[in-house]
């Protein structure tokens, strides 16, 4: 049936859209973009869908039906509230992909699909949202995961911070994969895939009142191919963990508690970039508590430690991998470090967030 009357307006036409130019009428997000009406639909049609599922005009609905290549899955969720939204080495968009891909990868799963939930603050510049969305799409593409459904809410100015992004993700696991903190066994060796503290200090360098000039960039990266390489070399990896919020110290404390084993860390062995170390000195922070977004901790049987190290170092994301400690029978539930002096110190989980100190 042909008709000459005006169609649904295409104010945000795909032709005119070129990231990072703003959408046409409102250069900023208004409440209506979350109202579930035409403005909401336009965000999907003209921003999210072209970015996340180019060419697929029916993708990115409220929910989706999938057939997975297996029924044993890993499932996870994370919300990202990082500030600034764009930082050296990434954006909240790529971080939201990497974080969830990594949580899946840490269980040994092959990450397949993600969902995305945006909570956008009224007034967010459309151009910035577009940059973040496109960075997110790039990260997903590079990681080989599909963003299959999404949700957008807009909150009033003063009730958000630009954008918060939740991602959930599903990966599939083979039946024989059993990776988990409880598998940490006395005698096992602890490895880290590279320098620690890069993400947290890259963020800190931008923080109001603490700014400093530096070349530190976030290590934000998807680690599932690194895990794949590691598992190809060492099938019996016992534990994998991405030491994000709370850093290496918090992750190892959790593993020690979960497996009821002791962990002894060799502080001198920790790979730390000089700039990260310097920033920590100036602000009085401990790099062991600083967040990473592209590093993994691996716990493997002692006899596989060197194989694991070589496998990690052979991968682009693991060139600075190191053996940093071992699982011990003593002090179960506790993380202890051998200091540079050869003494020991107990490393506890911090109460809250690490703050710069003067003392």
């Amino acid at each position, binding site marked *: 049936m042909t008709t000459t*009357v*005006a169609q649904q*307006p295409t104010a945000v036409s795909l032709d005119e859209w070129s990231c990072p130019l703003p959408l046409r009428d409102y250069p*900023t997000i208004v409440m*209506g973009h979350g109202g579930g009406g035409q403005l909401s639909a336009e965000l999907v049609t003209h921003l999210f869908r072209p970015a996340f599922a180019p060419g697929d005009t029916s993708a990115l609905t409220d929910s989706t039906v999938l057939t997975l290549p297996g029924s044993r899955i890993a499932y996870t969720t994370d919300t990202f509230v990082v500030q600034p939204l764009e930082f050296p080495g990434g954006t909240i968009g790529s971080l939201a992909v990497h974080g969830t891909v990594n949580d899946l990868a840490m269980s040994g799963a092959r990450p397949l699909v993600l969902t995305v939930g945006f909570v956008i603050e009224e*007034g967010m510049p459309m151009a910035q949202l577009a940059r973040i969305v496109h960075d997110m799409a790039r990260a997903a593409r590079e990681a080989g995961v599909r963003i299959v459904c999404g949700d957008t809410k807009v909150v009033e100015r003063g009730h958000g911070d630009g954008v918060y992004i939740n991602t959930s993700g599903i990966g599939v696991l083979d039946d024989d994969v059993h990776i988990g903190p409880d598998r940490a066994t006395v005698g096992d060796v602890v490895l880290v895939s590279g320098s620690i503290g890069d993400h947290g200090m890259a963020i800190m360098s931008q923080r109001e009142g603490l700014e400093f000039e530096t070349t530190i960039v976030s290590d934000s990266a998807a680690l599932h191919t690194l895990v794949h390489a590691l598992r190809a070399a060492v099938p019996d990896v016992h534990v994998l963990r991405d030491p994000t919020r709370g850093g290496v110290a918090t992750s190892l404390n959790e593993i020690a508690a979960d497996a009821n084993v002791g962990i002894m860390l060799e502080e001198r062995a920790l790979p730390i970039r000089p700039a990260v170390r310097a920033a920590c000195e100036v602000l009085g922070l401990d790099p062991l508590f600083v967040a990473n977004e592209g590093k993994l901790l691996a716990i493997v049987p002692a006899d596989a430690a060197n194989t694991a190290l070589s496998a990690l170092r052979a991968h682009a994301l693991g060139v600075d991998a190191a053996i940093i400690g071992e699982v011990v029978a003593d002090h179960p539930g506790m993380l202890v470090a051998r200091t540079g002096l050869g003494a020991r110190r107990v490393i506890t989980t911090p109460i809250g967030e690490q703050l710069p100190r003067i003392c």
Partner: protein
Amino acid sequence: MKYLAEFRDGEIAQRIAAEIRQLTTQPWAIMEVCGGQTHSIMRNGIDQLLPPEVELIHGPGCPVCVTPLEVIDKALAIAATPGVIFCSFGDMLRVPGSDRDLFRVKSEGGDVRVVYSPLDAVALARQHPNRQVVFFGIGFETTAPANAMAVHIAKLERLHNFSMLVSHVLVPPAIDAIMRSPTNRVQAFLAAGHVCSVMGFWQYPALSSMHRVPIVITGFEPLDVLEGIRRTIAQLEHGQHVVENAYARVVTFDGNRPAQELLERVFTVSDRAWRGIGVIPNSGWRLSEAYRDYDAEYRFDVTGIHTQESALCRSGEVLQGTIKPPTCSAFGEQCTPRTPLGATMVSSEGACAAYFNYGRTVQLQRAGTSR
């Protein structure tokens, strides 16, 4: 709801419509003055019950459509002022100013709040003594008593952080102006029932006889509107031109005297620009001298505003019923409800928006399911 549901009876509506069809022998153009009536017509499809000879012209009785661009721009400037809480009825938020609307000002940091009543804005002024609270006092005679009371209470309570941006317009001068227009096509008026509930209809006999035009005070429910049309057609077919009150359960000849008294105290009649139409003499109210301290235009420096109406927009002619929206070259192209160039494309009962959807209705009728 009592006194609503009874006046929506579909069967009786068909009977009144049948009566109208029986009465009608030739084309007639009737203007419903009030946007609320337009809304009722669109929402219920009243026009679809009428014989093809009867044309309803949507009048200028909607503050969204007629509040002048300059006032919208002043509202936007005040709303964008740091520290100000700018309160408005929901209707005004998408009305386009020269370069943006209140939604955008809000998204850019303006504290713009939708309130149900001007008294809510007064309450906000009490709650936030260190903030300037400004109410966007738009509307016709129906809304004016509420706005007048808000300013009056603010003055009584010496709420020095409350002020009002006033842009009130009056119906009788608009009827007069339309009838005086050389291109006028309107042959009868459905007068706005709720305006008359405040003002009464003592002003209308003179207008009716001067312009030899039937004026029927009309309510808003489907049966009310149909009855207003029926009585108008009856007059037109019989060559009459008198004032009739078809909304007697609400409207009296005198109107609401206490309201009229406060209106006289708080407001002063002034010339007023109507968006798209231009200045109509004595067609509006501004705050009187005694309330000048509560006038947002005096409190905020919003002089030097340069308005810029879209060069394409012909909403003035649309509002006066002299052209139909599709005649405007922007209609359905640059200008849609999603991207309005003129105010008449904003609310669903604005004449251009109504036509935009009406065009789709026409399509659906052409498609074979017409009545």
